[in-house]
């Protein structure tokens, strides 16, 4: 029971904090002081109290988009290990369900964007479709690197103790971590793939899809994307940090610290790199897939114990 409470608390409360950490890190790099760490919470509060305007050209898809996305992401969050190996729901194959829940959310975001009937949003939807198509193999290869040595497609078993599977998978885990980080940047629209603060047509991907949402819808969108970032970060943390499988207080502490570290890393990467040309994004994603493929080849070549 306490595990379930802890899991829900982390899932619901922590994601906006990550956004705050990222913004704060970027501000520090830029020499500014930056907004307080809990600013995203205040933003969400503010947005929830606003009214919404719906265009006459839109249909129920436009209204459903943010809601379904948030629901999908929250459901995925119930599958992901946060601070302990076992999530509230776990079964064989939940790794794959996780990936496709995120895809479902993405699909509805794109559908809502197309539903507006504006070519601006449509452009964002097409870009998003192209890039996520390339990010998916990278994601699966990275997940495979952890799942194959563990011999199971379930978070509970595969992510139980990556440090024990470090034996045979040792050189491959950094490869998986690098690939997963690249997918994190791509899926969550971070520099160098996409600039979350820009509003220039040339450079928008995710931002442009949600341009027309306002008020509570935008709050859902913002919250959903924060949770998505949090989920990717949690996978990364579990791969890299020594979290005891049983969880408990120690597990939660290490996990929170790790997630914050990932957020800081994202902030650093956003500050020191420039956004790459749109033509280069496929190369980045393919490169990430190749690195993961190499790691997988290493595992297969050395044999699975």
């Amino acid at each position, binding site marked *: 029971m306490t595990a379930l409470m802890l899991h829900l608390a982390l899932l619901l409360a922590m994601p906006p904090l990550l956004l705050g950490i990222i913004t704060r890190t970027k501000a520090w790099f830029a020499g500014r002081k930056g907004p307080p760490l809990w600013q995203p919470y205040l933003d969400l509060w503010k947005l929830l109290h606003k009214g919404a305007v719906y265009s006459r050209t839109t249909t129920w898809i436009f209204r459903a988009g943010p809601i379904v996305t948030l629901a999908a992401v929250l459901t995925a969050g119930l599958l992901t290990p946060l601070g302990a190996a076992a999530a509230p729901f776990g079964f064989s194959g939940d790794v794959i369900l996780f990936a496709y829940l995120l895809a479902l959310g993405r699909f509805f975001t794109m559908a809502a964007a197309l539903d507006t009937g504006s070519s601006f949003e449509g452009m964002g939807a097409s870009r998003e479709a192209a890039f996520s198509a390339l990010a998916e193999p990278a994601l699966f290869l990275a997940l495979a690197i952890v799942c194959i040595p563990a011999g199971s497609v379930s978070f509970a078993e595969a992510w139980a103790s990556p440090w024990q599977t470090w034996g045979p998978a040792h050189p491959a885990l950094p490869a998986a971590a690098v690939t997963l980080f690249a997918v994190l940047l791509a899926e969550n629209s971070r520099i160098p793939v996409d600039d979350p603060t820009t509003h220039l047509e040339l450079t928008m991907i995710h931002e442009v899809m949600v341009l027309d949402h306002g008020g509570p819808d935008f709050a859902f969108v913002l919250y959903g994307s924060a949770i998505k970032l949090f989920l990717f970060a949690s996978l990364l943390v579990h791969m890299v940090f020594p979290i005891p499988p049983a969880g408990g207080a120690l597990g939660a502490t290490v996990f929170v610290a790790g997630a914050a570290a990932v957020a800081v890393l994202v902030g650093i990467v956003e500050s020191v790199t420039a956004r790459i040309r749109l033509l280069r994004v496929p190369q980045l994603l*393919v490169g990430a897939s190749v*690195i993961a493929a*190499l790691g997988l080849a290493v595992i297969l070549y050395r044999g699975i114990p």
Partner: protein
Amino acid sequence: MTGYADLLLLAVLVLDLYVVYTSRLAGCVRASALQGAALALLPVVHYLESPSADLVHVLVMAASALALKAIVIPHLLMRALRDANVRRDVEPFVSLHLSVLLAGVLIGLSFWLATVLALPASGHTHLFVPTAFATFLIGFLVLVSRRKAITQVIGYLLIENGAYVFGQSLAAQMPFVVELGLLLDLLVGVIVMGIVILQINREFDHMDVDQLNLLKG
């Protein structure tokens, strides 16, 4: 501890792919410098795993490889790049995406070759042979599919790196002298190539080996 050599070798493979992928000459040179640094650490890691060879031998090997492959040779190549007033692009015959794909195929081929060869493995790590063959073959790919003379030198560097990795896997047999001979040969070879490249650039005013076709038949 056992995995660190494999980690270095994986880095070598990734750098191979980067050399094939990048379209900037300076990027190629820097990647080969990083690869040299990774290779220089290999004997150290090997020693940490199985302290059989003597420490002095290992340290001298590592230091000379580091100095040569990661510092001196890239410096020479960058100097040659700057002195020869050419465009800093790679100019491949085969498109870069296709080259990366070919490189991937070659890596797969070397893994297969390694299983066919079934050499007695040295120590605990098994990635030496595939990495050696992969780097060797990718060096060939770079040599053959690029137009600039400097990329041919980089291809030659990769080939020699592959041979070096293979020599590391047979560390017991390889006497000190031969390994140093290999490094020295690499240094002198690159110096000679650099000199000839500069001569070519002065005579022909370009570095495009595709246009070196006065002698035919």
